[in-house]
C-alpha cells in the first residue's frame, strides 16, 4: 500500500471545534491532495498542496505537507455540521497527476 497505517478511522467532534487529520505515505510524492466525500456523493477535491508549499489554506481549511517525514495534515477550524464527511488524502503514484491513489480516509462525525 502507498499509505501508512496510522491514519485515523473516525473522529467525533462538536460543532465549532477545530480538528486535524493526519496521513502518512510510503512512496515519494511531490503533491498531496485532500478530498472530501459526503454521503451519496463522489469525492471532491479540497486542497492540492505541493512539496514546495509546506502549508496551504483555503477558507477554514489548512493543509500541510512534510516531505521529509512523508506526512500531510488537514485542519478544519470551527467545524460545522456540513463538514460531516469522509476525508481522504491522496497522491498520484508517480504518474504525473492522472492516477489518484487514495488513503483509507477519516470519517468526521
Amino acid at each position, binding site marked *: 500500500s502507498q499509505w501508512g497505517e496510522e491514519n485515523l478511522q473516525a473522529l467525533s467532534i462538536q460543532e465549532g471545534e477545530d480538528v486535524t487529520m493526519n496521513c502518512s505515505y510510503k512512496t515519494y510524492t511531490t*503533491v498531496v*491532495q485532500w478530498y472530501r466525500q459526503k454521503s*451519496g*456523493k*463522489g*469525492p*471532491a*477535491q479540497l486542497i*492540492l498542496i505541493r512539496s514546495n508549499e509546506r502549508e496551504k489554506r483555503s477558507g477554514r481549511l489548512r493543509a500541510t505537507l512534510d516531505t521529509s517525514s512523508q506526512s500531510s495534515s488537514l485542519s478544519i477550524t470551527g467545524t460545522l455540521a456540513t463538514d460531516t464527511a469522509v476525508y*481522504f488524502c491522496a497522491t*498520484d503514484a508517480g*504518474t*504525473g*497527476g*492522472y*492516477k*489518484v*491513489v*487514495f*488513503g*483509507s*480516509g477519516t470519517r468526521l462525525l
Partner: protein
Amino acid sequence: NAGVIQTPRHKVTGKGQEATLWCEPISGHSAVFWYRQTIVQGLEFLTYFRNQAPIDDSGMPKERFSAQMPNQSHSTLKIQSTQPQDSAVYLCASSSRDWGYAEQFFGPGTRLTVL
C-alpha cells in the same frame, strides 16, 4: 453545469448477469477516469481515457471487466458474468487534462449490488 452524470445510480444484478454502467463527463473535458469504492479496498483506480483513447487500464480486473468511450460525451464500464465480489460503488470522474494534477471532478457513483 450538471457535473459528471452517472446512470443508473443503483443497479442490482443476479450472479452471472451482465452489468453496464454509464458515465457522461463534463462537456469539454478530455480525460475520463473510472474508480471503484468498497469498504474493504477503499477507492481504487480502474482505468482512464484521454480524448476517448484508452491510456491506462492497470487497475482493471483482467477478466470480465471492460471499458469503452465511443464518443466524447459518454463512457461505459461493462462487467460480464458479475460476481458478488463485484459489488461496489463505481465512480466516474472527468478532468480538463490528464497532466499537471488537474482536478478530477467525480460523479455520484453507481452502486452495484450482485446477489
